[in-house]
Structure formats: structure tokens, C-alpha cells
């Protein structure tokens, strides 16, 4: 087949294309994935019993804001990496900002605390399960976001896989906030971040293999 024949063939009956394909695909993936994560959390972990009082504490919302900012920035990154020829531009900065903010807050909290309390602030009660539970809750989102990416056209596969992992980790952590009893900034700034980085690492490993087109 000659190239001009191919062009004619591809154009024949091509029809209109719905605009905003990336946004629509990501919306579906995130709603579906977050629903999956919420079901998983409700079935296996349960909502924290004192949620009604926890939502009155400012630190609860600081924690939610931290993961929500990470989720928003990684969503922007994933969407940019899903379409050829777009630069990451401001996205790395937007990812670093909430991390730096929570670290500054954590340092402040640790400095003000008595020496004896510091390890409690850092380890809390659940440090040994928190990262793994976040990684587990991120799994349904991870699958959904990879599906969204697969239907678009990422050209930097390792980075795109990492962004998919980061996004799913942040949404997994957001859902985990409903269960998690920990509220201290040093805990959130380390163990939450670690939990989010697990799917990020998995994504960067799987990206080149799974996202080819």
C-alpha cells in the first residue's frame, strides 16, 4: 500500500472525534478507581469510629490537603504525560510544594516537642502498616489510571508509569485518611509519603512494558 493510499484509507469515514478525550478518560478512571479503593477500605479496614470528631480537628484537614494537593499535581502530570508533545512545565514544582510544606510543619512540631515524645510523633501507632495499606488501596486506582493512559498516547513511558503510580498512591492515601487514626505531621510527612511512593516505583517499573503503543 502506498502512503497516499494509506492517507486516503485512514481519512475515509473517519468521522468526528469527541473533544477532551484525556479529561473524560481520567474522570472515569478516577471515579471508578476511587470507588474501588473506598469499597476496599470499607470492607477490609473500616472507617475510623471517631471520624465525626476527627473532622473537627485542623490537622485532619491539613493531612487531607497534603494528599489532595499531591493528587491534583500528579493528575496534571499524568494528563500531560498522556499526550504527545506536552512539557511537564510547573508540575514538578506543584508536586514538591505540598511535600516541603508538610516537612516544614513536621520539623516545627518535632522541634517544639519534648525529646521523649518525638519518636511517638514520628512512629505513631501504625507506622508498620500505614504504607502498605495505602499501597493496597491504590491498587484499583492504579489499574484504572493505567487503563486511561493506555487509551491515550504517552511517549515517555517510565515517567508516565511513575505519574500513574503517584496519582493512584495519592488517591489511595486520600481514601486511607477516612480510616487512619494518625494525625501528626511527622507521621504523615514520612509514612504517607512512603505509601504513595510504593505504587510510584511500581509504575515506573511497569510503565515501559505496559504502556507501549
Amino acid at each position, binding site marked *: 500500500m502506498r*502512503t*497516499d493510499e494509506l492517507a486516503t484509507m485512514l*481519512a*475515509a*469515514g473517519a468521522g468526528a472525534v469527541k473533544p477532551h478525550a484525556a479529561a473524560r478518560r481520567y474522570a472515569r478512571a478516577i471515579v471508578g478507581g476511587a470507588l474501588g479503593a473506598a469499597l476496599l477500605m470499607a470492607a477490609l479496614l473500616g472507617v475510623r469510629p471517631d471520624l465525626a470528631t476527627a473532622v473537627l480537628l485542623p490537622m485532619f484537614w491539613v493531612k487531607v490537603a497534603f494528599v489532595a494537593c499531591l493528587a491534583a499535581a500528579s493528575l496534571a502530570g499524568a494528563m500531560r504525560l498522556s*499526550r*504527545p*508533545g506536552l512539557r511537564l512545565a510547573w508540575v514538578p514544582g506543584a508536586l514538591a510544594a505540598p511535600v516541603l510544606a508538610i516537612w516544614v510543619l513536621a520539623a516545627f512540631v518535632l522541634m517544639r516537642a519534648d525529646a521523649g515524645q518525638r519518636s511517638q510523633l514520628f512512629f505513631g501507632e501504625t507506622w508498620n502498616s500505614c504504607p502498605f495499606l495505602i499501597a493496597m488501596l491504590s491498587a484499583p486506582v492504579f489499574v484504572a489510571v493505567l487503563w486511561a493512559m493506555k487509551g491515550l498516547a504517552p*511517549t515517555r513511558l517510565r515517567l508516565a508509569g511513575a505519574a500513574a503510580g503517584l496519582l493512584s498512591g495519592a488517591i489511595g492515601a486520600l481514601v486511607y485518611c477516612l480510616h487512619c487514626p494518625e494525625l501528626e505531621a511527622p507521621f504523615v510527612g514520612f509514612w504517607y509519603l512512603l505509601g504513595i511512593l510504593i505504587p510510584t516505583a511500581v509504575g515506573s517499573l511497569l510503565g515501559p512494558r505496559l504502556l507501549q*503503543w
Partner: protein
Amino acid sequence: MRRIQETARLRSGEEKLRDLLVRGLAGDEPAYRAFLQDLSAHLRAFLRKRLVRLPDEVEDLVQESLLAIHNQRHTYDAGQPLTAWVHAIAKYKLVDLLRRRARHDLVADPLDDEFDFGTSADAEAAEARRDLGELLKRLPDGQRLPIVHMKLGGLSVTETARLTGMSESAVKVGVHRGLKALAAMIRSDA
């Protein structure tokens, strides 16, 4: 002054192509055909410059890129420079090709020993070595027939559906999946 004119000429070339694509995405078929035709010349020049040592691969890669651009056309955003989008796709396919070759031809085809004089790359559009028409025949009926009737025979969705006994949505899905499968075949074949 000359540079301004040159920039303006380039910009108007991009503008024209972008306009054709945007109209094509809205459903204007002649505009979309013109876009793909103009684009293949652009892709040929772009890839020829980057495949100096593999001139016989150029036309195959032009076709592969054209198919990729068609299959991923929903990822173009009208606010985005067209060149950046097209070049990112062509480069992706170029790197993919080089990687495949590195895997397959490491022993069989030592590039360094070859002289590339007297190849056919200077001809306007060299013959593609891979025949997409042949690959098309290997698709399952549910994808092949819609492509043959609609894309090659020029029938409408309704006519194709009546002729093949498939539903209209199955015809559309068949075309879509078939072209994606074609791209996958190219990748695993080469």
C-alpha cells in the same frame, strides 16, 4: 526582514495544517484527508533527516507514524502547537523502530560495514517495504471487513453494517480496533 518572512512562512504552514486537522477532528473528511496527505510529506522530510543510515526504513516509518497519528488523533488539543504533537509521535515511533532493530539485528546486520550510497531514499515517496494491505488481510473478519468496506470501499457505516450483517456500532468498533491491531502487528512484525 528575510527571517521574519521565513518565520511567517513556517508559521503559516503550521497554521494551515493545524486548521485542516481541527476541521478534520470536527468531522470534515476532505480536510482530514488533506491533512494526512500534507502530513506524510512533512513526516517523510522529518524522518529522512533522522534515518540517514537507514534510508530504506523511511517510508515504512512514515506509514507507521501516519497510522499512529490517526489512531491517537483524540490526544491532540487544539490549543497545542501541532508540530510538537506530531514530532513527539514520530520520534516515539522512531525510537521504537531503532530499539526493535537493535534487538533483532544485533548479529545479522552490522550497520557499520554498510555503505549507503545509491539507495532509493531520494525518490519522492519510496515504495514502502512492508505492505499494510497484506497485514490487513491477517486481521479477524470482525475488524477486516469493516475496514475493507468502509475505509477501502468507501461505503458508509450503514451500508457496511447491512452488507456484513454487523451492527453499526460493531462496524465502528471494528474499524477502530482493527487499525489499532494493525499498529500492534507492525510493532511485533518488524
